[in-house]
Protein backbone atom coordinates (compact mmCIF):
# COMPACT_ATOMS: atom_id res chain seq x y z
CA UNK A 1 0.00 0.00 0.00
CA UNK A 2 2.25 2.81 -1.17
CA UNK A 3 1.30 6.39 -1.95
CA UNK A 4 0.80 5.80 -5.67
CA UNK A 5 -1.56 2.94 -4.99
CA UNK A 6 -3.39 5.00 -2.39
CA UNK A 7 -3.73 7.87 -4.87
CA UNK A 8 -5.20 5.44 -7.39
CA UNK A 9 -7.64 4.00 -4.81
CA UNK A 10 -8.69 7.52 -3.84
CA UNK A 11 -9.37 8.40 -7.46
CA UNK A 12 -11.55 5.39 -8.15
CA UNK A 13 -13.29 5.81 -4.81
CA UNK A 14 -15.17 8.70 -6.42
CA UNK A 15 -16.19 7.29 -9.80
CA UNK A 16 -18.55 10.09 -10.83
CA UNK A 17 -15.90 12.74 -10.31
CA UNK A 18 -13.42 10.59 -12.16
CA UNK A 19 -15.87 10.14 -15.02
CA UNK A 20 -16.49 13.87 -15.37
CA UNK A 21 -12.80 14.69 -15.29
CA UNK A 22 -11.92 11.98 -17.76
CA UNK A 23 -14.67 12.94 -20.20
CA UNK A 24 -13.43 16.53 -20.23
CA UNK A 25 -9.77 15.54 -20.49
CA UNK A 26 -10.48 13.02 -23.22
CA UNK A 27 -12.42 15.60 -25.20
CA UNK A 28 -9.67 18.21 -24.85
CA UNK A 29 -6.72 15.95 -25.55
CA UNK A 30 -8.61 14.02 -28.22
CA UNK A 31 -9.62 17.12 -30.12
CA UNK A 32 -6.14 18.61 -30.02
CA UNK A 33 -4.58 15.38 -31.18
CA UNK A 34 -7.16 14.88 -33.90
CA UNK A 35 -6.52 18.34 -35.31
CA UNK A 36 -2.78 17.71 -35.26
CA UNK A 37 -3.18 14.31 -36.91
CA UNK A 38 -5.36 15.78 -39.62
CA UNK A 39 -3.22 18.86 -40.25
CA UNK A 40 -0.03 16.86 -40.22
CA UNK A 41 -1.28 14.53 -42.92
CA UNK A 42 -2.87 17.23 -45.02
CA UNK A 43 0.27 19.34 -44.89
CA UNK A 44 2.35 16.28 -45.64
CA UNK A 45 0.19 15.63 -48.69
CA UNK A 46 0.41 19.20 -49.88
CA UNK A 47 4.15 19.35 -49.33
CA UNK A 48 4.89 16.04 -51.04
CA UNK A 49 2.82 17.07 -54.04
CA UNK A 50 4.60 20.37 -54.48
CA UNK A 51 7.16 18.18 -56.29
CA UNK A 52 9.28 21.16 -57.19
CA UNK A 53 6.50 22.60 -59.34
CA UNK A 54 6.99 26.35 -59.68
CA UNK A 55 4.07 27.27 -61.85
CA UNK A 56 0.81 25.88 -63.14
CA UNK A 57 -0.54 27.25 -66.40
CA UNK A 58 -4.18 26.74 -67.35
CA UNK A 59 -7.37 28.49 -68.31
CA UNK A 60 -8.38 31.74 -66.63
CA UNK A 61 -10.34 31.38 -63.43
CA UNK A 62 -9.52 30.87 -59.79
CA UNK A 63 -5.78 30.34 -59.35
CA UNK A 64 -6.37 28.19 -56.26
CA UNK A 65 -8.80 26.03 -58.21
CA UNK A 66 -6.23 25.60 -60.96
CA UNK A 67 -3.65 24.45 -58.40
CA UNK A 68 -6.07 22.16 -56.55
CA UNK A 69 -7.16 20.63 -59.84
CA UNK A 70 -3.78 20.21 -61.49
CA UNK A 71 -1.56 19.36 -58.53
CA UNK A 72 -3.84 17.77 -55.96
CA UNK A 73 -6.63 16.53 -58.20
CA UNK A 74 -9.31 17.60 -55.73
CA UNK A 75 -11.06 20.28 -57.74
CA UNK A 76 -12.56 20.66 -61.22
CA UNK A 77 -10.56 22.32 -64.03
CA UNK A 78 -10.94 26.02 -64.68
CA UNK A 79 -11.41 25.22 -68.36
CA UNK A 80 -9.21 24.11 -71.21
CA UNK A 81 -6.38 25.72 -73.14
CA UNK A 82 -5.47 25.09 -76.74
CA UNK A 83 -2.19 23.47 -77.68
CA UNK A 84 -1.56 26.48 -79.86
CA UNK A 85 -1.59 28.83 -76.89
CA UNK A 86 0.27 26.41 -74.69
CA UNK A 87 2.95 25.63 -77.24
CA UNK A 88 5.63 28.06 -76.03
CA UNK A 89 5.58 26.49 -72.57
CA UNK A 90 5.42 22.90 -73.76
CA UNK A 91 8.25 23.15 -76.26
CA UNK A 92 11.46 21.54 -75.09
CA UNK A 93 14.25 24.08 -74.82
CA UNK A 94 12.45 27.11 -73.39
CA UNK A 95 15.28 29.07 -71.76
CA UNK A 96 13.49 29.50 -68.41
CA UNK A 97 11.71 26.16 -68.19
CA UNK A 98 13.49 23.02 -67.07
CA UNK A 99 10.51 20.73 -67.38
CA UNK A 100 6.86 21.00 -68.32
CA UNK A 101 4.08 18.42 -68.04
CA UNK A 102 0.86 18.66 -70.07
CA UNK A 103 -2.25 17.49 -68.24
CA UNK A 104 -5.67 16.58 -69.62
CA UNK A 105 -8.21 15.77 -66.98
CA UNK A 106 -11.96 15.42 -66.91
CA UNK A 107 -12.69 11.71 -66.67
CA UNK A 108 -12.51 9.13 -63.95
CA UNK A 109 -12.75 5.45 -63.37
CA UNK A 110 -14.55 4.57 -60.11
CA UNK A 111 -13.64 7.96 -58.67
CA UNK A 112 -9.96 7.84 -59.67
CA UNK A 113 -8.87 10.42 -62.18
CA UNK A 114 -7.68 9.56 -65.63
CA UNK A 115 -4.93 11.94 -66.64
CA UNK A 116 -3.74 12.32 -70.19
CA UNK A 117 -0.07 13.24 -70.10
CA UNK A 118 3.37 12.13 -71.21
CA UNK A 119 6.23 10.47 -69.36
CA UNK A 120 7.60 13.76 -68.05
CA UNK A 121 5.12 13.47 -65.16
CA UNK A 122 7.03 10.41 -63.89
CA UNK A 123 10.25 12.41 -63.70
CA UNK A 124 8.50 15.28 -61.97
CA UNK A 125 7.02 13.08 -59.24
CA UNK A 126 9.99 10.74 -59.18
CA UNK A 127 7.80 7.74 -60.01
CA UNK A 128 9.02 4.34 -61.24
CA UNK A 129 7.18 1.56 -62.99
CA UNK A 130 6.78 -1.41 -60.65
CA UNK A 131 5.29 -3.92 -63.10
CA UNK A 132 4.62 -3.77 -66.80
CA UNK A 133 5.56 -0.66 -68.76
CA UNK A 134 4.76 2.97 -69.29
CA UNK A 135 1.68 3.86 -71.31
CA UNK A 136 2.36 4.82 -74.93
CA UNK A 137 -0.29 3.79 -77.45
CA UNK A 138 -3.92 4.88 -77.52
CA UNK A 139 -5.97 3.58 -74.60
CA UNK A 140 -2.97 2.23 -72.81
CA UNK A 141 -2.97 3.16 -69.13
CA UNK A 142 -0.50 2.90 -66.28
CA UNK A 143 -2.07 2.89 -62.84
CA UNK A 144 -0.80 4.57 -59.69
CA UNK A 145 0.02 2.18 -56.84
CA UNK A 146 -3.04 3.01 -54.75
CA UNK A 147 -5.53 2.92 -57.61
CA UNK A 148 -4.24 -0.48 -58.61
CA UNK A 149 -4.38 -1.80 -55.06
CA UNK A 150 -7.82 -0.43 -54.25
CA UNK A 151 -9.48 -1.34 -57.54
CA UNK A 152 -7.54 -4.58 -57.96
CA UNK A 153 -6.16 -3.61 -61.36
CA UNK A 154 -3.59 -5.86 -63.03
CA UNK A 155 -1.76 -5.84 -66.33
CA UNK A 156 -4.40 -6.45 -68.95
CA UNK A 157 -7.32 -5.18 -66.86
CA UNK A 158 -9.74 -3.19 -68.97
CA UNK A 159 -12.02 -0.35 -67.94
CA UNK A 160 -14.20 2.38 -69.38
CA UNK A 161 -13.88 5.96 -68.24
CA UNK A 162 -16.76 8.06 -66.91
CA UNK A 163 -17.16 11.73 -67.54
CA UNK A 164 -16.53 14.00 -64.56
CA UNK A 165 -14.91 13.10 -61.29
CA UNK A 166 -17.40 10.86 -59.61
CA UNK A 167 -18.25 7.31 -60.52
CA UNK A 168 -21.38 7.44 -62.68
CA UNK A 169 -22.42 4.65 -65.05
CA UNK A 170 -24.68 6.95 -67.14
CA UNK A 171 -21.78 9.12 -68.19
CA UNK A 172 -19.58 6.25 -69.29
CA UNK A 173 -17.53 6.71 -72.45
CA UNK A 174 -17.15 4.00 -75.04
CA UNK A 175 -13.38 3.79 -75.26
CA UNK A 176 -11.90 0.82 -73.42
CA UNK A 177 -8.64 1.43 -71.59
CA UNK A 178 -6.20 -1.36 -70.90
CA UNK A 179 -3.70 -1.42 -68.05
CA UNK A 180 -0.15 -1.92 -69.33
CA UNK A 181 1.74 -1.06 -66.15
CA UNK A 182 1.54 -0.23 -62.49
CA UNK A 183 3.70 2.34 -60.72
CA UNK A 184 5.58 1.98 -57.51
CA UNK A 185 4.11 3.83 -54.55
CA UNK A 186 5.51 7.38 -54.32
CA UNK A 187 3.47 8.88 -51.48
CA UNK A 188 2.46 11.63 -53.89
CA UNK A 189 -0.73 12.24 -55.81
CA UNK A 190 0.47 10.07 -58.69
CA UNK A 191 -0.49 7.04 -56.57
CA UNK A 192 -4.11 8.03 -57.08
CA UNK A 193 -4.02 8.55 -60.84
CA UNK A 194 -4.59 6.53 -63.97
CA UNK A 195 -2.13 7.80 -66.55
CA UNK A 196 -2.60 7.57 -70.32
CA UNK A 197 -1.47 9.58 -73.30
CA UNK A 198 -3.15 12.86 -74.16
CA UNK A 199 -4.62 11.54 -77.39
CA UNK A 200 -6.57 8.85 -75.51
CA UNK A 201 -8.40 11.60 -73.63
CA UNK A 202 -9.11 13.39 -76.89
CA UNK A 203 -10.19 10.22 -78.61
CA UNK A 204 -12.57 9.16 -75.88
CA UNK A 205 -14.33 12.50 -76.23
CA UNK A 206 -14.36 12.56 -80.00
CA UNK A 207 -17.57 11.58 -81.70
CA UNK A 208 -16.74 8.23 -83.21
CA UNK A 209 -15.46 6.88 -79.93
CA UNK A 210 -15.18 3.32 -81.14
CA UNK A 211 -11.92 2.51 -79.47
CA UNK A 212 -8.85 1.43 -81.28
CA UNK A 213 -9.98 1.47 -84.92
CA UNK A 214 -9.80 4.37 -87.33
CA UNK A 215 -8.76 6.97 -84.81
CA UNK A 216 -7.50 10.26 -86.13
CA UNK A 217 -4.86 10.01 -83.43
CA UNK A 218 -3.33 6.80 -84.71
CA UNK A 219 -0.14 8.63 -85.54
CA UNK A 220 0.15 10.22 -82.10
CA UNK A 221 3.44 9.37 -80.42
CA UNK A 222 4.85 10.03 -76.97
CA UNK A 223 7.30 12.61 -78.32
CA UNK A 224 6.54 16.17 -77.21
CA UNK A 225 6.73 17.37 -80.82
CA UNK A 226 3.94 15.01 -81.73
CA UNK A 227 1.68 16.63 -79.16
CA UNK A 228 2.46 20.07 -80.46
CA UNK A 229 1.28 19.12 -83.95
CA UNK A 230 -2.34 19.02 -82.78
CA UNK A 231 -2.71 22.78 -82.52
CA UNK A 232 -6.48 22.76 -82.49
CA UNK A 233 -6.79 20.28 -79.64
CA UNK A 234 -6.97 21.27 -76.00
CA UNK A 235 -5.40 20.27 -72.74
CA UNK A 236 -6.29 21.27 -69.17
CA UNK A 237 -3.07 22.65 -67.78
CA UNK A 238 0.70 22.55 -67.69
CA UNK A 239 2.94 21.93 -64.69
CA UNK A 240 6.14 23.92 -64.96
CA UNK A 241 9.54 23.68 -63.27
CA UNK A 242 11.90 26.62 -63.77
CA UNK A 243 15.54 26.24 -64.63
CA UNK A 244 16.30 28.72 -61.90
CA UNK A 245 13.48 29.88 -59.69
CA UNK A 246 15.31 33.02 -58.57
CA UNK A 247 15.90 34.17 -62.10
CA UNK A 248 14.41 37.61 -62.64
CA UNK A 249 12.70 36.67 -65.87
CA UNK A 250 11.27 33.55 -64.32
CA UNK A 251 9.86 35.63 -61.49
CA UNK A 252 8.12 37.82 -64.02
CA UNK A 253 6.76 34.98 -66.09
CA UNK A 254 3.44 34.52 -64.23
CA UNK A 255 2.63 38.20 -64.52
CA UNK A 256 3.48 38.23 -68.20
CA UNK A 257 1.27 35.25 -68.85
CA UNK A 258 -1.63 36.67 -66.86
CA UNK A 259 -1.42 40.09 -68.47
CA UNK A 260 -0.57 39.24 -72.05
CA UNK A 261 -2.26 35.93 -72.82
CA UNK A 262 -5.61 34.21 -72.38
CA UNK A 263 -3.87 31.80 -70.09
CA UNK A 264 -3.59 31.91 -66.35
CA UNK A 265 -0.41 31.20 -64.42
CA UNK A 266 -0.63 30.33 -60.75
CA UNK A 267 2.16 29.84 -58.26
CA UNK A 268 1.61 26.77 -56.04
CA UNK A 269 3.67 28.03 -53.12
CA UNK A 270 1.69 31.25 -52.98
CA UNK A 271 -1.74 29.65 -53.43
CA UNK A 272 -1.09 26.85 -50.96
CA UNK A 273 0.03 29.36 -48.36
CA UNK A 274 -3.20 31.23 -48.96
CA UNK A 275 -5.06 27.96 -48.48
CA UNK A 276 -3.21 27.27 -45.22
CA UNK A 277 -4.14 30.73 -44.04
CA UNK A 278 -7.80 30.15 -44.83
CA UNK A 279 -7.85 26.73 -43.24
CA UNK A 280 -5.73 28.05 -40.42
CA UNK A 281 -8.57 30.23 -39.16
CA UNK A 282 -10.87 27.25 -38.81
CA UNK A 283 -8.17 25.08 -37.34
CA UNK A 284 -7.20 27.80 -34.89
CA UNK A 285 -10.78 28.17 -33.72
CA UNK A 286 -11.00 24.43 -33.17
CA UNK A 287 -7.66 24.40 -31.41
CA UNK A 288 -8.79 27.21 -29.17
CA UNK A 289 -11.92 25.26 -28.34
CA UNK A 290 -9.83 22.20 -27.54
CA UNK A 291 -7.54 24.23 -25.28
CA UNK A 292 -10.58 25.74 -23.55
CA UNK A 293 -11.95 22.27 -22.89
CA UNK A 294 -8.56 21.23 -21.54
CA UNK A 295 -8.56 24.22 -19.19
CA UNK A 296 -12.10 23.42 -18.07
CA UNK A 297 -10.98 19.88 -17.36
CA UNK A 298 -8.12 21.24 -15.26
CA UNK A 299 -10.59 23.38 -13.30
CA UNK A 300 -12.79 20.33 -12.88
CA UNK A 301 -9.87 18.33 -11.48
CA UNK A 302 -9.02 21.25 -9.21
CA UNK A 303 -12.58 21.50 -7.86
CA UNK A 304 -12.98 17.77 -7.35
CA UNK A 305 -9.65 17.56 -5.51
CA UNK A 306 -10.61 20.54 -3.37
CA UNK A 307 -13.96 18.95 -2.52
CA UNK A 308 -12.42 15.63 -1.72
CA UNK A 309 -9.89 17.43 0.47
CA UNK A 310 -12.71 18.87 2.54
CA UNK A 311 -14.26 15.44 2.89
CA UNK A 312 -10.93 13.84 3.66
CA UNK A 313 -9.60 16.28 6.16
CA UNK A 314 -9.58 13.64 8.94
CA UNK A 315 -8.08 11.14 6.60
CA UNK A 316 -5.20 13.44 5.77
CA UNK A 317 -4.64 14.20 9.45
CA UNK A 318 -4.73 10.48 10.08
CA UNK A 319 -1.98 9.90 7.52
CA UNK A 320 0.12 12.45 9.38
CA UNK A 321 -0.59 10.79 12.74
CA UNK A 322 0.47 7.47 11.25
CA UNK A 323 3.85 8.95 10.43
CA UNK A 324 3.27 10.61 7.06
CA UNK A 325 5.29 13.75 6.40
CA UNK A 326 3.65 16.92 5.03
CA UNK A 327 5.46 16.21 1.75
CA UNK A 328 3.83 12.77 1.69
CA UNK A 329 0.40 14.44 1.61
CA UNK A 330 1.55 16.92 -1.03
CA UNK A 331 2.80 14.06 -3.16
CA UNK A 332 -0.42 12.09 -2.64
CA UNK A 333 -2.66 14.90 -3.88
CA UNK A 334 -0.37 15.82 -6.78
CA UNK A 335 -0.34 12.18 -7.82
CA UNK A 336 -4.13 12.09 -7.83
CA UNK A 337 -4.17 15.00 -10.28
CA UNK A 338 -1.36 13.62 -12.40
CA UNK A 339 -2.81 10.11 -12.59
CA UNK A 340 -6.12 11.56 -13.78
CA UNK A 341 -4.27 13.62 -16.38
CA UNK A 342 -2.35 10.54 -17.49
CA UNK A 343 -5.57 8.58 -17.92
CA UNK A 344 -7.11 11.50 -19.80
CA UNK A 345 -4.07 11.63 -22.07
CA UNK A 346 -4.23 7.93 -22.88
CA UNK A 347 -8.00 8.00 -23.47
CA UNK A 348 -7.75 11.18 -25.55
CA UNK A 349 -5.01 9.70 -27.73
CA UNK A 350 -6.94 6.50 -28.21
CA UNK A 351 -10.15 8.37 -29.00
CA UNK A 352 -8.53 10.66 -31.56
CA UNK A 353 -6.91 7.77 -33.40
CA UNK A 354 -10.16 5.81 -33.39
CA UNK A 355 -12.01 8.91 -34.65
CA UNK A 356 -9.38 9.34 -37.37
CA UNK A 357 -9.84 5.79 -38.57
CA UNK A 358 -13.64 6.11 -38.38
CA UNK A 359 -13.60 9.32 -40.41
CA UNK A 360 -10.72 8.22 -42.61
CA UNK A 361 -12.83 6.93 -45.48
CA UNK A 362 -15.05 9.99 -45.78
CA UNK A 363 -11.98 12.25 -45.50
CA UNK A 364 -10.22 10.21 -48.15
CA UNK A 365 -13.06 10.75 -50.59
CA UNK A 366 -13.11 14.46 -49.99
CA UNK A 367 -9.37 15.03 -50.12
CA UNK A 368 -8.46 12.29 -52.59
CA UNK A 369 -5.86 11.15 -50.10
CA UNK A 370 -5.55 8.16 -47.84
CA UNK A 371 -5.59 9.30 -44.20
CA UNK A 372 -3.68 7.00 -41.88
CA UNK A 373 -5.11 6.65 -38.40
CA UNK A 374 -2.27 5.13 -36.38
CA UNK A 375 0.60 7.38 -37.33
CA UNK A 376 2.45 9.88 -35.19
CA UNK A 377 2.62 13.58 -35.95
CA UNK A 378 5.67 14.25 -33.81
CA UNK A 379 4.05 16.46 -31.20
CA UNK A 380 2.73 13.68 -28.96
CA UNK A 381 5.43 14.31 -26.38
CA UNK A 382 4.38 17.95 -26.19
CA UNK A 383 0.72 17.02 -25.65
CA UNK A 384 1.84 14.49 -23.04
CA UNK A 385 3.89 17.07 -21.18
CA UNK A 386 1.13 19.67 -21.39
CA UNK A 387 -1.54 17.27 -20.12
CA UNK A 388 0.59 16.15 -17.18
CA UNK A 389 1.44 19.79 -16.53
CA UNK A 390 -2.25 20.60 -16.46
CA UNK A 391 -2.88 17.78 -13.99
CA UNK A 392 -0.05 19.04 -11.83
CA UNK A 393 -1.26 22.64 -11.95
CA UNK A 394 -4.80 21.58 -11.07
CA UNK A 395 -3.50 19.60 -8.10
CA UNK A 396 -0.83 21.93 -6.78
CA UNK A 397 -3.07 24.24 -4.72
CA UNK A 398 -5.04 21.39 -3.11
CA UNK A 399 -1.69 19.68 -2.54
CA UNK A 400 -0.30 22.73 -0.77
CA UNK A 401 -3.43 22.80 1.38
CA UNK A 402 -2.88 19.14 2.20
CA UNK A 403 0.76 19.90 2.99
CA UNK A 404 -0.41 22.51 5.50
CA UNK A 405 -2.96 20.21 7.15
CA UNK A 406 -3.33 21.26 10.79
CA UNK A 407 -3.68 17.87 12.45
CA UNK A 408 -4.35 19.23 15.89
CA UNK A 409 -7.27 21.42 14.82
CA UNK A 410 -8.76 18.83 12.48
CA UNK A 411 -8.67 16.09 15.06
CA UNK A 412 -9.98 18.32 17.85
CA UNK A 413 -13.07 19.02 15.78
CA UNK A 414 -13.59 15.31 15.20
Amino acid at each position, binding site marked *: *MNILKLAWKNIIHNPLNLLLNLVLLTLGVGLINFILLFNHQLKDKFDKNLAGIDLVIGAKGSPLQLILCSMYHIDAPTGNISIKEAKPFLRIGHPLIKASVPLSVGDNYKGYRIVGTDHSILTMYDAQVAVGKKWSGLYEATAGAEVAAVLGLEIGSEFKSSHGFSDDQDLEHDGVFRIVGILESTGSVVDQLLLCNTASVWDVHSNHGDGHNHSKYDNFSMERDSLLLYEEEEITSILVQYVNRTNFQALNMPRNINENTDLQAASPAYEINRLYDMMGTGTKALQLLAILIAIVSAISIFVSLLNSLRQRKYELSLLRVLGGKPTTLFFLIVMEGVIMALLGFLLGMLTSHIAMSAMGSSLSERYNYQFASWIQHGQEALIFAMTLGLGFLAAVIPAIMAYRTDIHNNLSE*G
Partner: protein
Amino acid sequence: MFTYCGMLRTDSIKHHYTNAQRFDFPDINCNSSEAMLILGQSGVGKTTLLHILAGILKPQEGQVYIGDKALYGLSGNQLDKFRGQHIGLVFQKPHFVQSITAEENLLLTQKMAGQPTDKKLADSLLSKLNIGHRKSAKAYKMSQGEQQRLSIARAIINRPKVILADEPTSALDDKNCEKVIDLLKEQAEEVKASLLIVTHDNRLKDIFSNYIELS
Protein backbone atom coordinates in the same frame (compact mmCIF):
# COMPACT_ATOMS: atom_id res chain seq x y z
CA MET B 1 14.23 6.54 41.67
CA PHE B 2 12.32 4.50 39.11
CA THR B 3 9.70 7.19 38.51
CA TYR B 4 11.81 9.15 36.06
CA CYS B 5 12.74 6.21 33.95
CA GLY B 6 9.20 5.57 32.70
CA MET B 7 8.40 4.82 29.07
CA LEU B 8 6.34 7.97 28.83
CA ARG B 9 6.84 10.94 31.02
CA THR B 10 6.15 14.62 30.84
CA ASP B 11 7.92 17.55 32.34
CA SER B 12 5.89 20.61 33.42
CA ILE B 13 3.74 21.00 30.31
CA LYS B 14 1.91 24.29 29.94
CA HIS B 15 -0.23 25.35 27.02
CA HIS B 16 -2.78 28.02 26.31
CA TYR B 17 -4.94 29.04 23.34
CA THR B 18 -6.24 32.30 24.82
CA ASN B 19 -5.31 34.15 27.98
CA ALA B 20 -8.55 33.02 29.59
CA GLN B 21 -7.85 29.36 28.91
CA ARG B 22 -4.51 28.30 30.31
CA PHE B 23 -3.64 24.67 30.86
CA ASP B 24 -1.07 23.64 33.39
CA PHE B 25 -0.81 19.88 33.22
CA PRO B 26 0.46 17.64 36.02
CA ASP B 27 3.53 15.57 35.21
CA ILE B 28 2.81 12.09 33.95
CA ASN B 29 4.97 9.04 34.29
CA CYS B 30 3.94 5.74 32.84
CA ASN B 31 6.08 2.58 32.49
CA SER B 32 6.02 0.01 29.75
CA SER B 33 3.19 -2.50 30.01
CA GLU B 34 1.57 -0.12 32.47
CA ALA B 35 -1.89 1.34 32.00
CA MET B 36 -2.91 4.78 33.17
CA LEU B 37 -6.10 6.79 33.08
CA ILE B 38 -6.30 10.54 32.61
CA LEU B 39 -9.70 11.68 33.79
CA GLY B 40 -11.31 15.03 33.31
CA GLN B 41 -14.53 16.76 32.43
CA SER B 42 -15.03 18.61 29.17
CA GLY B 43 -12.95 21.72 28.76
CA VAL B 44 -10.09 20.80 31.04
CA GLY B 45 -7.75 20.21 28.13
CA LYS B 46 -7.97 16.45 27.67
CA THR B 47 -7.66 16.52 23.90
CA THR B 48 -4.95 19.17 24.12
CA LEU B 49 -2.95 16.95 26.46
CA LEU B 50 -3.50 13.89 24.28
CA HIS B 51 -2.25 15.78 21.22
CA ILE B 52 0.76 17.02 23.14
CA LEU B 53 1.56 13.48 24.28
CA ALA B 54 1.14 12.19 20.74
CA GLY B 55 3.55 14.70 19.24
CA ILE B 56 0.77 16.42 17.32
CA LEU B 57 0.75 19.70 19.22
CA LYS B 58 3.90 21.34 20.49
CA PRO B 59 3.27 22.71 24.00
CA GLN B 60 4.32 26.23 24.76
CA GLU B 61 6.29 25.00 27.72
CA GLY B 62 7.58 21.66 28.92
CA GLN B 63 8.68 18.46 27.28
CA VAL B 64 7.41 14.95 26.56
CA TYR B 65 9.79 12.00 26.78
CA ILE B 66 9.12 8.66 25.23
CA GLY B 67 11.86 6.26 26.21
CA ASP B 68 14.92 8.49 26.15
CA LYS B 69 13.69 10.69 23.28
CA ALA B 70 12.46 14.22 23.93
CA LEU B 71 9.54 14.51 21.47
CA TYR B 72 9.80 18.22 20.92
CA GLY B 73 13.52 18.12 20.48
CA LEU B 74 12.95 16.30 17.18
CA SER B 75 12.63 18.00 13.81
CA GLY B 76 9.24 17.95 12.08
CA ASN B 77 10.01 15.00 9.84
CA GLN B 78 11.77 13.10 12.62
CA LEU B 79 8.77 13.65 14.85
CA ASP B 80 6.36 12.39 12.17
CA LYS B 81 8.44 9.26 11.72
CA PHE B 82 8.85 8.75 15.45
CA ARG B 83 5.10 9.10 15.97
CA GLY B 84 4.36 6.59 13.26
CA GLN B 85 6.76 4.05 14.72
CA HIS B 86 6.36 4.45 18.47
CA ILE B 87 2.96 5.97 19.21
CA GLY B 88 -0.33 4.19 18.58
CA LEU B 89 -3.47 6.33 18.66
CA VAL B 90 -7.05 5.23 19.18
CA PHE B 91 -9.46 8.04 18.35
CA GLN B 92 -12.82 8.72 19.91
CA LYS B 93 -14.44 8.42 16.51
CA PRO B 94 -12.68 5.87 14.39
CA HIS B 95 -11.10 7.55 11.36
CA PHE B 96 -9.91 5.45 8.46
CA VAL B 97 -8.89 5.96 4.87
CA GLN B 98 -12.25 5.44 3.20
CA SER B 99 -11.12 4.32 -0.19
CA ILE B 100 -9.26 1.22 0.97
CA THR B 101 -10.10 -1.99 2.85
CA ALA B 102 -9.56 -2.81 6.53
CA GLU B 103 -6.47 -4.86 5.71
CA GLU B 104 -5.09 -2.14 3.44
CA ASN B 105 -5.57 0.39 6.23
CA LEU B 106 -3.26 -1.71 8.40
CA LEU B 107 -0.70 -2.11 5.62
CA LEU B 108 -0.81 1.65 5.07
CA THR B 109 -0.10 2.12 8.77
CA GLN B 110 3.08 0.08 8.43
CA LYS B 111 4.07 1.88 5.26
CA MET B 112 3.52 5.36 6.73
CA ALA B 113 5.74 4.48 9.67
CA GLY B 114 8.45 3.45 7.26
CA GLN B 115 8.13 -0.25 8.14
CA PRO B 116 8.01 -3.05 5.59
CA THR B 117 4.41 -4.10 4.97
CA ASP B 118 3.57 -7.47 6.45
CA LYS B 119 0.30 -8.91 5.21
CA LYS B 120 0.55 -11.96 7.47
CA LEU B 121 0.90 -9.82 10.56
CA ALA B 122 -2.04 -7.64 9.50
CA ASP B 123 -4.24 -10.66 8.84
CA SER B 124 -3.33 -12.43 12.06
CA LEU B 125 -4.02 -9.26 14.01
CA LEU B 126 -7.43 -8.88 12.38
CA SER B 127 -8.22 -12.53 13.18
CA LYS B 128 -7.08 -12.10 16.76
CA LEU B 129 -9.50 -9.18 17.13
CA ASN B 130 -12.27 -11.27 15.57
CA ILE B 131 -12.58 -9.17 12.43
CA GLY B 132 -10.53 -11.45 10.18
CA HIS B 133 -13.56 -12.11 8.03
CA ARG B 134 -13.92 -8.38 7.39
CA LYS B 135 -10.41 -7.77 6.08
CA SER B 136 -11.61 -6.97 2.56
CA ALA B 137 -14.39 -4.65 3.71
CA LYS B 138 -14.10 -0.90 3.30
CA ALA B 139 -13.84 0.63 6.76
CA TYR B 140 -16.99 2.73 6.43
CA LYS B 141 -19.03 -0.37 5.75
CA MET B 142 -18.02 -1.97 9.06
CA SER B 143 -20.12 -1.80 12.25
CA GLN B 144 -19.09 0.56 15.04
CA GLY B 145 -17.74 -2.31 17.11
CA GLU B 146 -15.75 -3.63 14.17
CA GLN B 147 -14.38 -0.17 13.49
CA GLN B 148 -13.24 0.16 17.09
CA ARG B 149 -11.46 -3.18 16.89
CA LEU B 150 -9.85 -2.11 13.64
CA SER B 151 -8.61 1.10 15.19
CA ILE B 152 -7.09 -0.90 18.07
CA ALA B 153 -5.43 -3.19 15.53
CA ARG B 154 -4.03 -0.13 13.81
CA ALA B 155 -2.74 1.33 17.07
CA ILE B 156 -0.71 -1.77 17.91
CA ILE B 157 0.41 -3.10 14.52
CA ASN B 158 3.73 -1.24 14.62
CA ARG B 159 4.39 -2.45 18.21
CA PRO B 160 4.52 1.09 19.57
CA LYS B 161 6.08 2.09 22.89
CA VAL B 162 2.99 4.07 23.85
CA ILE B 163 -0.69 3.65 23.09
CA LEU B 164 -2.88 6.71 23.54
CA ALA B 165 -6.66 6.31 23.52
CA ASP B 166 -9.08 9.23 23.33
CA GLU B 167 -12.48 8.52 24.91
CA PRO B 168 -12.55 4.95 23.64
CA THR B 169 -15.60 4.02 25.74
CA SER B 170 -17.78 7.11 25.89
CA ALA B 171 -20.28 5.84 23.33
CA LEU B 172 -20.45 2.28 24.69
CA ASP B 173 -22.73 0.52 27.15
CA ASP B 174 -21.25 -1.01 30.32
CA LYS B 175 -20.72 -4.43 28.83
CA ASN B 176 -18.97 -3.24 25.73
CA CYS B 177 -17.06 -0.63 27.71
CA GLU B 178 -15.44 -3.35 29.77
CA LYS B 179 -14.74 -5.46 26.71
CA VAL B 180 -12.96 -2.64 24.89
CA ILE B 181 -10.86 -1.72 27.90
CA ASP B 182 -9.88 -5.36 28.40
CA LEU B 183 -8.93 -5.60 24.76
CA LEU B 184 -6.86 -2.42 24.92
CA LYS B 185 -5.05 -3.54 28.08
CA GLU B 186 -4.43 -6.99 26.73
CA GLN B 187 -3.06 -5.76 23.42
CA ALA B 188 -0.92 -3.08 25.05
CA GLU B 189 0.58 -5.64 27.39
CA GLU B 190 1.27 -7.98 24.54
CA VAL B 191 3.41 -5.41 22.73
CA LYS B 192 4.75 -4.13 26.11
CA ALA B 193 3.47 -0.62 25.48
CA SER B 194 2.39 1.99 28.02
CA LEU B 195 -1.34 2.54 27.72
CA LEU B 196 -2.80 5.98 28.42
CA ILE B 197 -6.51 6.50 28.25
CA VAL B 198 -7.86 10.03 28.24
CA THR B 199 -11.52 10.10 29.18
CA HIS B 200 -14.38 11.67 31.12
CA ASP B 201 -15.91 8.23 31.61
CA ASN B 202 -15.98 7.71 35.39
CA ARG B 203 -16.80 4.03 34.97
CA LEU B 204 -13.17 3.44 34.10
CA LYS B 205 -12.02 4.66 37.53
CA ASP B 206 -12.97 1.29 38.96
CA ILE B 207 -10.93 -0.62 36.43
CA PHE B 208 -7.73 1.42 36.61
CA SER B 209 -5.78 1.76 39.79
CA ASN B 210 -3.49 4.28 38.20
CA TYR B 211 -5.14 7.57 37.28
CA ILE B 212 -4.67 11.31 37.17
CA GLU B 213 -7.53 13.73 37.34
CA LEU B 214 -7.32 16.95 35.37
CA SER B 215 -9.13 19.97 36.64
